């Protein structure tokens, strides 16, 4: 516990400054649970769709519709937590303010692409567009937090998005078999999600847990 009585040495002062700034930085980075949840939902929808295309259990977009419902439900749950239970982070950072706007822009653009795929744009084009949007979000996120895994994930996502965009030219599909090409797009989408959301998310979560443990140790050893 921090007390007032002990005289501070120069090193003590620097240690306090460093610890507190690290704490604030970690607060901005968060525990990565948002990326992990979003990533696993996207991955489940991609793999579900791949299997569904293979075995023809349900309609082609069943898993994506289920994903949409889950996303809406989670969105309502998150909003409810803030509105009804007044759960706030207790701190406003300049980065968190930018993230809020970035997330609004991301979800509006995502919605735009989803609507576009429902009014005529082929899913073979729509999903690569979504992948490029994921890459954009991840790059900005990584750059603002100086978190390299997100930046690397963004570039991998863009490479995969480009490959997915040209899948109809790269892969020779049986005549009129769009589902064969769509399966490949889903495979690339799943790979992109792993690199862009899941790996950075789990790394951020590990870092967060390590730093939390470190903080506890520091607090115990503090005078």
């Amino acid at each position, binding site marked *: 516990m921090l007390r007032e009585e002990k005289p501070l040495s120069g090193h003590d002062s620097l240690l306090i400054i460093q*610890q*507190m700034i690290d704490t604030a*930085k970690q607060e901005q980075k968060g525990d990565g649970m948002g990326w992990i949840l979003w990533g696993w939902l996207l991955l489940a929808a991609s793999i579900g769709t791949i299997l569904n295309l293979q075995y023809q259990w349900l309609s082609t977009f069943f898993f994506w519709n289920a994903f949409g419902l889950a996303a809406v439900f989670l969105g309502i749950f998150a909003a409810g937590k803030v509105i009804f239970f007044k759960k706030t982070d207790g701190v406003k950072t300049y980065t968190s303010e930018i993230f809020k706007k970035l997330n609004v822009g991301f979800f509006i653009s995502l919605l735009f692409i989803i609507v576009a795929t429902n009014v005529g744009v082929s899913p073979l084009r729509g999903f690569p567009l979504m992948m490029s949007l994921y890459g954009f979000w991840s790059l900005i996120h990584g750059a603002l937090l100086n978190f390299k895994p997100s930046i690397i994930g963004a570039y991998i996502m863009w490479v995969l998005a480009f490959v997915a965009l040209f899948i109809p030219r790269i892969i020779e599909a049986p005549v009129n078999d769009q589902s064969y090409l769509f399966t490949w797009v889903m495979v690339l989408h799943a790979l992109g999600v792993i690199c862009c959301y899941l790996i950075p998310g789990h790394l951020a979560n590990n870092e967060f847990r390590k730093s939390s443990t470190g903080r506890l140790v520091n607090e115990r050893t503090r005078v």
Partner: protein
Amino acid sequence: MSAPVFNELDPILHSQLRLAVMSLVISVKEAEFTFLKEKTNSTAGNLSVQVQKLKDAGYIDVTKQFKDNYPLTTCKITPKGVSAFEAYVKALQSYLNMGK
């Protein structure tokens, strides 16, 4: 060997809890009292006194309001506080360099 005493350093900042609070509020846009209490692992009474001292020195702005019948205190660093913190870090660096 006892720790060296730096009389020339800003006495308002040269205290564990006040320095911790300043280091936190300089890193964020604004912070609630509960956040500062949690991150500095201090007691509400002690933190309240130190926050008041920083406020009196003009280093932070303290806003007290009510949110759903609960008091909500938020702290924000002032330009004077930023300058003082920068000067403190600079002075600290020069002392540490002198010791090398």
